């Protein structure tokens, strides 16, 4: 219950924040919201359904490129483009999850790793569409005639989407679907004997997580306004997984905490090139050994997803 009581002041603070801090901090906060969105999706996949993906940078990239291209070429307005990109990515995600139907965790990790690398390659090579290694520059987006040309506007958009995403994930986890996925994680055999369609829920968990990743990717494209295949590699995929793990697998606050941790880390070690990587990697290893519930494990029970 303490969680609920904190919610209102937290929301007020988040709404007021961009007026009190500089542009760079607003940017960092927006980036945190975006990463948190991906992490929420990963949490449904890994924390809830117990599957691992090393390819989510690909879905993040598909979201970014599809949103960018659809708006840039005047095909769809920004909000619709975001949604269309996410649906496209979900479709691809569902297809990509097909091998997952037959695979144990070990092989799923390898398959998604391969998938992520193919998508990155394709973005490099499909120059006519993506601009290849030269990248893609984007003009500020419009929503209903308003031009979102300052950081604050996008901050609020990202905040709203994050709030919606958190709410939906909470509902999914609480409902039938989430309970089925949880069962899948703990024992597939038991889930099967109870009549839970293992294949269906595995694909559903994967597709859902790619939806989150693609929405986040679309927002990211317009946050940085310059996207390049280089940024969507294996390192990013591992980071997404790492955020959920450090934040706390299967907890509601975990993905957000993980995203905060991930964005703050390079800021804390500005100028020391390898230090953020070292700390992030160590955090992953140590979290697994000593703190399997992650940062959120320290938080009160009512904040947990399951």
């Amino acid at each position, binding site marked *: 219950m303490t969680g609920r009581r904190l919610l209102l002041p937290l929301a007020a603070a988040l709404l007021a924040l961009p007026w009190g801090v500089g542009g760079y901090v607003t940017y960092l906060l927006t980036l945190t919201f975006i990463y948190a969105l991906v992490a929420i999706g990963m949490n449904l996949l*890994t924390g809830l359904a*117990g599957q*691992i993906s*090393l390819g989510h940078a690909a879905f993040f990239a598909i979201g970014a490129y599809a949103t960018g291209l659809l708006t840039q070429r005047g095909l769809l307005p920004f909000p619709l483009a975001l949604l269309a990109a996410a649906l496209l990515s979900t479709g691809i995600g569902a297809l990509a999850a*097909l*091998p997952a139907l*037959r*695979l144990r*965790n*070990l*092989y799923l*990790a*390898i*398959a998604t*790793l*391969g*998938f992520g*690398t*193919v998508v990155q*390659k*394709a973005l*490099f*090579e499909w120059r006519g569409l993506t601009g290849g290694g030269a990248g893609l520059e984007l003009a500020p987006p419009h929503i209903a005639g308003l031009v979102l040309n300052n950081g604050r506007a996008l901050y609020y958009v990202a905040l709203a989407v994050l709030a919606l995403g958190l709410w939906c994930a909470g509902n999914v986890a609480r409902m039938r679907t989430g309970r089925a996925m949880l069962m899948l994680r703990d024992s597939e*055999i038991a889930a099967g004997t109870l009549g839970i369609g293992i294949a269906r829920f595995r694909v559903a968990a994967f597709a859902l997580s790619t939806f989150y990743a693609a929405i986040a990717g679309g927002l990211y494209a317009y946050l940085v306004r310059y996207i390049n295949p280089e940024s969507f590699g*294996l390192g990013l995929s*591992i980071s997404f*997984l*790492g955020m959920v*793990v450090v934040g706390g697998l299967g907890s509601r606050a975990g993905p957000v905490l993980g995203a905060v941790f991930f964005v703050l880390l390079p800021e804390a070690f500005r100028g020391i*090139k*390898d*230090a953020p*990587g*070292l700390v*992030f*990697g*160590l*955090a*992953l*290893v140590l979290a*697994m*050994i000593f703190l*399997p519930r992650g940062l959120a494990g320290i938080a009160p029970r009512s904040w947990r997803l399951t």
Partner: protein
Amino acid sequence: MIGNLILGGLAAGSLYALVGIALAIVIRVTDIPNFAQGEMAMVSTFVAYSLLDRYGLGWWAAVALALGFAVLQGVAVQILVIRPLIGGPVLSAVIATLGLNIVLNSIAGMIWGHETHIFPSPLGDAPPVFVAGVPLPLDSVANIGVALAVILGVTLLLRYSWAGLALRATSQDAVMARLVGIPIGRSFALAWGLGGLAGGIAGVLVAPALFLDTNMMGALLIKGFAGGVLGGLSSLWGVFGGCLVLGVLENLVGAYLSPSFGDALTFIVLIAVLTIRPEGLLGRVRMRKV
């Protein structure tokens, strides 16, 4: 032309195979795909480089010491990182190896920097050998030979030594192995040590062919996985064959279709095999009791 491509592909494939064997040994015993294998090999290679460059050791002495380090590194990783996670979900151990991957990369960057170094080969200046009329650098021939020797050595060790027998027993059924008095902790450590050794050998052989830098093993790790999955991770000869086929295919596709497609092919093959025949071409399905 085509002969050259095939032999070059075999040479590249045997490097993938060394990484693939390292991964397969560890997976066979502990069921964990070690995503830090590549970076562990990279660190061992840098150790060899430091011994050569800073301490002025001869090539063979430096490499022998570095391979000793590779074995100890594998054992240390198993004891410090993996052992506390045994018995938990495989997912935790996989994530720990991913974390270790980042840690090792960062540490190597801090010690040796991110610029590229040149790592010598003892065979660098030797004249090419002619195989079926095709000139082939001696390095490439050596790669194939070393990969064969390693896989043969590991196979013999597994089949005829007590430690190998214990290791196989552990991989079949850890609980049963412990019941009959096999120190399974030692088997796990041995598997990771052997994995470290095979990876380290791959690193020392790759470095002269490419350059030595902190990211050199990233692509090789993925190809080791891909080749291993293609041939079947449960069989060492399957891993070897799968990696060779992958190396040759890559070379041929790269030459005749498009250079950039050669790389993508790796992953298309990987995903196709996983979808159609996850146990690999030569792998056996491991039945598990419910």
